[in-house]
């Protein structure tokens, strides 16, 4: 287990390193950040001084090594736009994104699993068929459209929910969270629904397929023959086996939501990392782009490790193998 964990960490470090190289080359070919950020009225001498100060006049490999040296000191660079450490800039926006991602995850699991279970157990009922049809809508609607429609209906026309922002926040562990206040929760509802609709449909379909697959299996039949209550068969034997693919998918989805909820955050004015990265790309803020992607790679690796540990707990076969 420990050896496996260490191996994982090495893999992660390598991925991060490879990614920084790619990003470095990528961002350096898409225009000059000085041109976009310096005032049009600044003279050529200020321009040259700045280019030198930001090492933009050095060859790309040299810039890269300067960056690596900074990383060893825990410094991922200073944002060109905000003139503050890129890492800090991203970390201050992280709670908002995490909150939104976990809210969406919670919705997708609490709604998707029971509905999927129902559809799997009673595949021929009218309700199941209706749910399955609606779920097609769930993963074919683009988020930007859905988000805008929700805003139009619930904020503009009905006026029930706020259209944007995080609302009031309260402090927990030194960080501001929206879900702790009523006003904040209200702000959270629409973006969370927008993000979760696709995931609900996904989880629902996964669970349904799983149930359909598991029910005819021998161990379920055996449990039935033994006279176990149907409730126990489903909640202990069927559901536990189902959870393995669901955990994998939900894990990956969580990562994607945290990293790339750009569109939803933009539409709802949600001050998270996604909005920061899109603004940084627009203003060619290289240090923020690089730091963001480093953090995202770390995040994905962490999630993968957690998913693997969950496997370990859910699937006895994995445990036996590890032993």
């Amino acid at each position, binding site marked *: 287990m420990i050896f496996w964990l260490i191996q994982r960490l090495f893999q992660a470090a390598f991925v991060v390193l490879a990614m920084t190289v790619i990003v470095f080359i990528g961002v350096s070919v898409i225009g000059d950040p000085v041109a976009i950020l310096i005032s049009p009225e600044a003279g050529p001498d200020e321009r040259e001084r700045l280019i030198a100060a930001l090492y933009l006049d050095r060859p790309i490999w040299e810039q890269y090594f300067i960056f690596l040296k900074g990383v060893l000191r825990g410094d991922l660079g200073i944002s060109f736009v905000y*003139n503050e450490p890129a890492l800090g800039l991203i970390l201050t926006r992280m709670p908002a994104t995490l909150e939104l991602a976990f809210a969406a995850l919670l919705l997708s699991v609490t709604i998707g699993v029971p509905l999927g279970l129902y559809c799997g157990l009673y595949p021929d009922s009218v309700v199941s068929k209706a749910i399955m049809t609606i779920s097609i809508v769930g993963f074919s609607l683009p988020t930007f459209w859905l988000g805008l429609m929700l805003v139009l209906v619930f904020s503009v026309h009905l006026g029930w929910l706020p259209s*944007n922002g995080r609302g009031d926040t309260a402090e927990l562990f030194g960080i501001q969270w929206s879900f702790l206040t009523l006003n904040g929760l209200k702000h959270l509802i629409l973006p969370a629904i927008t993000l979760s609709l696709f995931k609900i449909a996904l989880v629902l379909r996964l669970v349904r397929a799983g149930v359909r697959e598991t029910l005819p299996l021998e161990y379920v039949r055996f449990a039935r023959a033994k006279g176990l209550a149907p409730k126990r068969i489903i909640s202990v034997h069927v559901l536990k086996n189902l959870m393995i693919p669901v955990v994998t998918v939900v894990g990956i989805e969580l990562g994607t939501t945290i990293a790339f909820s750009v569109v939803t955050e933009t539409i709802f*004015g949600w001050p998270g990392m996604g909005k920061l990265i899109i603004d940084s790309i627009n203003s060619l803020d290289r240090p923020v782009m690089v730091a963001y992607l480093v953090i995202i790679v770390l995040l994905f690796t962490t999630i993968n490790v957690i998913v693997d540990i969950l496997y370990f707990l859910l699937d006895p076969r994995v445990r036996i193998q590890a032993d």
Partner: protein
Amino acid sequence: MTFDLVSRVARRFTCEVTAAVIGLAACLLPAQAQELKIGARSDIVIDPHSSWAMSNTQYFYHYLGFMNWLDESDKVVPRMAKSATAVSPNLWEVKLNEGLKFSNGAPVTVNDVVASYERARTLPNAIGTFAGLFAGLKEMKAIDDLTMRVVTSRPYPTWPATMTQISVLPAEVAKTATQADFSSGRANISSSAYKFVEYVPANRLVVERNSAYVGPKARWDKVTFRILTNNATRVAALLSGDVDMIDGVPPEDAATIAKDPRFTLYTGPSDRIIMLAMDSSRDVSPFITDLQGNKLTTNPLKDVRVRRAMSLAIDRELIRDRVMDGHSIPNNQLIPKGLGGYAANIPEAKVDLPKARALMKEAGWADGFGIALACPEGRYVNASKICQAAAQMLGRINIKVTVEVMPYGVFASRVTNKTGDRASLMLFGWGASSSGEANVLQNAIHTWDKEQRLGAWNIGMYSNPEVDKLIVKGLSTLDAKERHAIQAEAMTKAMEDVAAIPLHTQVVIVATRKGLKYTVQANECTLADFVEPTSN
């Protein structure tokens, strides 16, 4: 005993009812309207000396002191300064008002001003540096607490306008403050009508009335800027009543909002003009081809008749009506009407296809040529749509235009790289906010001259010695009226020679809920004290 309990409960109940009634009354009083929520289109770079852009300055105008301000039509008006006098061509004497105080109670002195300006000039790694404003500056010194002397190496007629751009902090803050001190608010010590309350990145900026301010009282107790950079989100926030007003209304939504009885739309000319810049200097321009796509060995844009024909082929009124939804002002020169350097004698820029075709024929280009139009996206209102429209209009005189849309960052680095390929035809905009007059001349029309810091944004590399001479003369003329006359003369000459093709003046569009009145600012700033509640 029982009676006692009842009376106690009754008394408590009465208290609560009274409190509730008072609370309710407080809610019903108009005093409740003292908080203003603005949906703002741009985020802030919170360190006031690190990024020189009006989109930042508009926030600092609220909670930091400035020597001068720009009024709604870009005129320089005194704020903390009492006066600014040019004692001799290279010496400005600036007097500070008496009795000014920072929000921490300390008096404002010239030392604070000098230290702040020094910080703006030298702040390391500030990519949007203010340093350019201090070019040619020899020395700033305090004569006494209220008198500052500014010595320059050459005449600096727009120094009063420069003082509208740089915020003033207490000297000890200016000398020691770090980025984090501005984010936390510790360093944001106000000598303006409002003071800083909090800034949550990408979310909101909150300011409240500064009671220490001695000038006109702030109109609002509290102002919250909700940072909503996405157009649709901002409009939705207004429509759903989350905010009282929004700036940067997209032209395509303006009509809908104007029709809605719950809202009012306010529009006015900005100080930014949109133009087409042309490569009129190189003998061969890399993005001009014949109609088959082969590179030309001559540059048709060197011929003023071709440039004039292009200007005549463009229907600015059609662009206004169809592309800008009515929200642009066709212009015939590179400075909006009413600003210093505007030349009233330049004829109106009207579409005239027969004349344009005749000019093309006369120049020997009746069959036309192909050209690529470099078009920056994300900086000017509807830029790519304007490019498409202009391309079609030029097609009517047989100039086949290919529109190349690119992010502004890519555009800017490409067209300003004087040693590179640059572009042959470019859409470009220029705002006059930093001086309130035709500074487009020295920055974008004067021949590129690195040593003299002239023509850095002359992206077509236009060059006309006669115009240059007038521009330089204007730069060293202290008297504003005289200077503006010289600028107008330079503008007239440049437009006769079609140095660039002016398209239109951008329009500032702001929407408020009913019951508020807003005075539009030419410099595109959104300022809370220009929002007034109306009686209904």
